[in-house]
């Protein structure tokens, strides 16, 4: 197991290194410089370049960048003069993490509930409603859903704050719902398939013949066994959440890293884009690694096959 984890961590570092390198050279490929004001005198331009380290040869810039990145220093933002990228990211990480965590918890829990209900009441109206819900959750783009929520719930009915991050928990409710739709739909669908499988297995039959009630069967045996594979889709769902947060944070004007990313794209703030790309990658690979290790602990069969590789 330790060998497996070490191998995975090594691979994670290699991936991050490659991603950092690729983003760096992509950014170097971009035409023009951040200082393309024609009125800028040559000596000031040279001074600015020296200040940002852009006068050195590319390989030296690259090594500097990597060295900085290892120490959590991603350079200085072009858009906000003098602001460290690392500071910009860390100061905005809070709302994004809170939203992401809330959406993940709400989405998976409700999804498990909905999927389990659908499986237990298979081929009834409960199943139909749950299926429709899951399909709609997959089909409505989260930014459309967010915009509609904002219009109807916040603007028309005035129940919750329309935007911004100033009313504590209540301003996080609508964005969380908008973000949670995708994980909810995915989990519900996955859970239903698993649970239907489990409910028709021999050990459930045995539990029933022992005289367990439906509730006991579901709570003691079926639920737990069907929940194990759901762990595997947490990784892909984390990706969805990161992507979703970019637009949802934008729509609700939440000061998170998703909103910062979109803002930096529209203003060509390359250091911030690079920093955030690496950040997203890091979070994603770590989430997937944790999920894989967790899964190995829950289900020993996976651990064995992982080591055999």
């Amino acid at each position: 197991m330790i060998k497996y984890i070490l191998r995975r961590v090594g691979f994670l570092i290699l991936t991050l290194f490659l991603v950092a390198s690729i983003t760096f050279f992509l950014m170097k490929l971009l035409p023009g410089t951040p200082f393309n004001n024609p009125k800028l005198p040559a000596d000031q331009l040279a001074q600015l370049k020296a200040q940002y380290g852009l006068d050195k040869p590319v390989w030296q810039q690259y090594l500097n960048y990597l060295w900085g990145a290892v120490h959590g220093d991603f350079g200085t933002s072009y858009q906000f003069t003098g602001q460290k990228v690392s500071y910009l990211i860390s100061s905005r990480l809070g709302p994004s993490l809170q939203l992401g965590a809330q959406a993940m918890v709400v989405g998976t829990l409700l999804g498990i509930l909905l999927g389990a209900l659908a499986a237990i009441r298979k081929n009834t109206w409960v199943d139909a409603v749950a299926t429709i819900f899951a399909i709609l959750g997959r089909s409505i783009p989260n930014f459309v859903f967010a915009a509609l929520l904002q219009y109807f719930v916040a603007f028309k009915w005035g129940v919750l704050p329309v935007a911004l991050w100033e009313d504590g928990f209540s301003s996080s409710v609508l964005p969380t719902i908008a973000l949670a739709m995708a994980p909810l739909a995915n989990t519900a669908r996955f859970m239903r398939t698993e649970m239907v499988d489990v409910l028709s297995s021999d050990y459930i039959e045995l539990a029933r013949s022992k005289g367990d009630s439906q509730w006991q069967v579901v709570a003691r045996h079926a639920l737990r066994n069907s929940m194990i594979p759901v762990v595997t889709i947490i990784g892909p769902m984390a990706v969805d959440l990161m992507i979703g947060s970019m637009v949802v944070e934008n729509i609700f004007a939440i000061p998170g890293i998703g909103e910062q990313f979109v803002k930096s794209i529209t203003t060509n703030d390359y250091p911030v884009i690079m920093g955030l790309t690496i950040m997203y990658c890091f979070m994603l690979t770590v989430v997937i690694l944790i999920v894989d290790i967790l899964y190995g602990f829950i289900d020993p069969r996976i651990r064995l096959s992982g080591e055999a590789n």
Partner: protein
Amino acid sequence: MAASKHIAPDAFKLAHVAATEKEYIAAPALTFSQDAMRRLKQNKAAVISFWLLVIIFAAALLSLVITPHDPNAQNLNYTYLPPKWGDLNIPFFNGHENGIDMYARNQVPKGTYFLLGTDYLGRDLLSRILVGTRISLFIAVIATLFDLVVGVGYGIISGWNGGWIDTLMQRVIEIISSVPNLVVVILMLLVFKPGLKSIIVAIAVTSWITMARLIRAQTLKLKDQEFVLAAKTLGESSFQIALKHLVPNLSSTIIIQTMFTIPTAIFFEAFLSYIGIGLPAPTASLGTLLNDGQKALQTQPYLLIYPAIVIVVLMLAFNLLADGLRDAFDPRSAH
């Protein structure tokens, strides 16, 4: 028991069945794909989705030839006109806003109607939705092509060759997929100029990954089977085996996965245009329409709601059809 005793054994006699009749099979033998089509046709949601998609495709293609109005023609006298369906007085579709007839106020000549209203530049929303849908479908077709050519090709080569080639190709996939694919797309769009070409390049880089993975796993299973061995023994080249023996056996995976790629590609385009790095103005796409609609949401909600309905219906139809196809081609997954 008692009754049976009274029946004499000679009350029974052998029925005469002709030998040919015994061998006769009433139901026609179905091939795998015929069987799948039969199952698909039983799935009402999938059938309705299929016809919905046909209609949407037809309408979008028709917009190449004719649209109700020029989708990019601006007319500042006609800005923000609500929907009006001729002289039919249907609520929400009678050209009134807050009780005022906006058509009369803006002195729109009689006989000029905008079925779904106009946007902030006086452009006809219906025409723009039609053109936008066409772009979304075009992107869907492109993504499908990459899925079929690159994804299937990559998967088969990786799985078939095995060894270091496989290891290398899988590491490449792992690295690409460890970055959220939208981040890859966004980086691509920064290097190239935003536009249809860049979106296509971006899709080319990311969209085929899942397909390649699935196809590789299937190829690994297939390549040890007897029919492949037989083909090898007969001296067929790897390329021939892939084309004649592997691809037909992979067809259900290919069909199902393609159907799941399409909604993702449509979502991609809409997402990119929505955050402002997709298609540049004035091109209409579902994403740009949603973006414009979002800006006017508080006063003219229909500008967001109609494109939203179109994209939701499109995604819904593709998802339902994909589910139906999966259940039809892979009955074990259906339950």
